[in-house]
């Protein structure tokens, strides 16, 4: 219980820090927007073509964006060495991870939902009738990205070339998320939409496996 209340307090801190400046959210939204526009030049975005290619490029854009967005979550703590203070303030370091990954999931989900209408309009794919399923997929995938991304951001923050390193560590690790979410999104945007329960279960298993790994090994990631 102490773990959850600690994490809740820290989550409040994460959200306050971000919503004071909103710099992370604005830069990520603009980045994804640029990628979506640039991708439209690589093929002819008619409705049928879009149904085939758009889910993949949407997820690729989200993945690239997240590898940039997750970067500052530990770098921010380094400037004034606030990480040591955080570590002293909680009894279980997993609370720090829990707060950061919850905040990251929220930020990712927010940017994805902001950009979904833009995507739907620009690529001619109706999304309203399957919106609730898309939100579920967005949530599960963002959670998976945030869990593994927060862990790897803690690693890359302690290395040289950290800005370049995180995408190199994170993107190959996220292959399963990319494959699964792209396929689920494709079946949802189909002319005859259907829900791939198998895929949703798969995302949930990914989240669970990496959450367990983070719970087991998280404290070592923050060792001085």
């Amino acid at each position, binding site marked *: 219980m102490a773990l959850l209340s600690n994490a809740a307090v820290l989550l409040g801190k994460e959200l306050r820090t971000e919503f004071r400046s909103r710099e992370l959210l604005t830069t990520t939204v603009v980045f994804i927007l640029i990628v979506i526009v640039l991708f439209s030049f690589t093929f002819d975005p008619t409705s049928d073509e879009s149904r085939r290619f758009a889910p993949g490029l949407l997820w690729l854009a989200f993945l690239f964006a997240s590898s940039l967005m997750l970067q500052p979550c530990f770098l921010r703590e380094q400037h004034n060495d606030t990480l040591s203070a955080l570590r002293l303030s909680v009894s279980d370091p997993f609370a720090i991870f829990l707060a950061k990954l919850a905040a990251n999931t929220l930020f990712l989900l927010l940017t994805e939902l902001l950009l979904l209408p833009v995507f739907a309009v620009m690529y001619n794919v109706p999304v309203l009738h399957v919106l609730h399923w898309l939100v579920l997929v967005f949530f599960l995938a963002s959670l998976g990205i945030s869990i593994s991304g927060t862990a790897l951001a803690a*690693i890359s923050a302690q290395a040289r070339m950290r800005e370049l390193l995180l995408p190199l560590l994170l993107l190959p690790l996220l292959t399963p998320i990319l494959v699964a979410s792209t396929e689920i999104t494709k079946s949802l945007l189909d002319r005859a939409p259907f829900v791939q329960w198998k895929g949703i279960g798969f995302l949930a*298993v990914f989240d669970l496996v990496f959450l367990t790994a983070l719970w087991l090994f998280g404290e070592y990631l923050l060792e001085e």
Partner: protein
Amino acid sequence: MAGAAVLFLVVAAAYASFYIAPEERTMRVLQRIFYFHAASAWAGMTAFSICFVANLLYVWRRQEKWDALGVSCAEVGLAFTTVVLITGPIWAKPAWGIYWTWDARLTSTFVLWLLYISYLLLRTLIEEPDRRALLSALFGIFAFIDVPIVFGAIRWWRTQHPAPVIMGGPDSGLEPTMRAVFFFSVLALHALMVFLIVERYQLEKMRADFEIVRREAEAQ
């Protein structure tokens, strides 16, 4: 001495796969690359598994030797996986008509290869030895956990690789001589793998010792 024995085994395996194993009916001489290709894949997987165990032991025990073993296994495993990724397309082009297909085993081997490249890259970017050992061990653990998930994902959603002939379904299996030659190749390449890991491990130890001497000299 050990080197000579390993060399003998590898040469004997090459001889066996070219002259002792019978010719396969449809693929002819082409199939002979299988003894080298699949056996390297097994050796690479064994090396990565040892790497995973070494990573866990480092996090638990914090002894330098586990870090040295981890990096040695990762490099040797990467070398074997590179052989797999090169011999695969050589076989695939005449057999399937294409060099590469994004099938489950090819793609997950490629992702596995990328993950361990990242592991070695991460090591070059952290100066302090203890921190490098701990953080790369943790990344190694995450990477190894990811491999079966990657395989599952690609297998579910896209899949041309021949079905497993070893430990596959009831209709699978190898002709007895082929089987014997194959397992002999597996043995030879595992011997080579162990030999390379031991050599690499000793090199890593020497590097660590050298680093201590260099620091002492600098301090004076």
